[in-house]
């Protein structure tokens, strides 16, 4: 998944330092990668942004799948005071557009909708919603100033981000579980299997956590 690319690169570097195995990383939207995998793409493993795609792949004979990280949904409104109430902020007229990831495509998007509904004012702000195809595009919309607020991945937030930053409480949305799965193409590749095992080591988990993910 695109949102995990930064972390994955660092993991690969660390893995190489440990084992000497080179891991090549291909990023893309999960849907695109799925289409490619079913058409015989030479990928060994998939770090998906969701759980359903690996599940589907497992049903088609790939596998096994297991979670490697949980996404953290964050509201970011760079122009607002850090201590403002997020609920009030979202309904403020000064916030004309709220960027989210496409709920059809990205688990973060689906999580955002769920959280807004749970908070009870989804209908009030539905007209303000603009969608990026993924969390990266939603972030771009906020970053550029085009949208005054947006729901993004904690992992995407730069360290020096200003303004209102609010990690949505995890009980407001279903867990954004990101699963990894070993693909058929990687069955004979020990390095692929090794990397999968590496993902759940404490060293790897530390890296993942540093990138703003919750751990399984």
């Amino acid at each position, binding site marked *: 998944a695109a949102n995990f690319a930064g972390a994955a690169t660092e993991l690969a570097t660390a893995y190489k330092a440990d084992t000497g195995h080179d891991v090549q990383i291909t990023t893309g939207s999960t849907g695109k990668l799925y289409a490619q995998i079913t058409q015989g793409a030479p990928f060994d493993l998939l770090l998906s942004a969701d759980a359903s795609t690996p599940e589907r792949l497992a049903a088609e004979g790939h596998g096994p799948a297991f979670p490697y990280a949980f996404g953290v949904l964050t509201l970011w409104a760079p122009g607002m005071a850090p201590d403002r109430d997020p609920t009030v902020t979202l309904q403020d007229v000064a916030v004309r*557009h709220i960027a989210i990831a496409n709920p059809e495509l990205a688990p973060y998007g689906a999580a955002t909708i769920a959280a807004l509904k749970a908070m009870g004012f989804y209908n009030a702000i539905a007209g303000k919603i603009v969608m*990026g195809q993924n969390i990266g595009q939603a972030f771009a919309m906020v970053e*550029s*100033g085009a949208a005054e607020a947006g729901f993004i991945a904690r992992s995407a937030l730069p360290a020096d981000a200003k303004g209102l930053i609010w990690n949505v409480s995890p009980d407001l949305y279903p867990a954004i579980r990101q699963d990894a799965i070993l693909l058929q193409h990687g069955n004979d590749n020990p390095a692929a299997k090794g990397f999968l095992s590496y993902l759940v080591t404490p060293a790897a988990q530390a890296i993942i956590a540093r990138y703003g993910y919750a751990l399984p």
Partner: protein
Amino acid sequence: MSGVDLGPLWLTLRLAAIVTFLLLLLAAPLAWWLSQTRSRAKPVIEALTALPLVLPPTVLGFYLLILFSPKSTFGAFWVQATGETLTFSFTGLVIASMLYSLPFAVQPLQAAFESLGRAPMEAAAMLRASPFDRFFTVALPLAKRGFLTATVLSFTHTLGEFGVVLMVGGNIPGKTKVISIAIYEHVETIRYADAHVLSAILLVFSFVTLLIVYSLNRQAARITG
């Protein structure tokens, strides 16, 4: 497979029609100027007009997003002047698409104008036609084939492209969600059957439109001899 929502199709057609129309309005004088000028700036402008094609659409969209956003000077000016933001609006889509399809309009028109040579324009000048007059009554009709190419390329490109549109438009149903985004979504969400249906509709519709355009053009050419 759910019922197919045709809203994005109409939105797309409206967008493509408006973009193509405005683009031709804008590109014709630019292409004409390029074809006539002896300015040393000519190759520079020519190279610039081709540049929108070089960046990946999403990336171009990203930069346009930054340019259009109310935080930028241009975006702020626009908000002040019109009360609307350019981002996430149909107007913004139109401007972004125009920029992106600019090369498809300018280049064929310029080529057509250049192939005219000076003779017909000189002849028109000797019939008391002002430069403006002869542009409309001689250059434009004689560059008809260039207009056809420019129109077809701009229109179809606007139909199909979505990278720029997605970034700048924000995929708002009924406002900025065009058909290309809809098809893309279906593919990404593995709803292939829906994708096939929408693609087929778009393809058949486009094919029929193009067929009509080309058949009319052929008849016109035959009459002209």
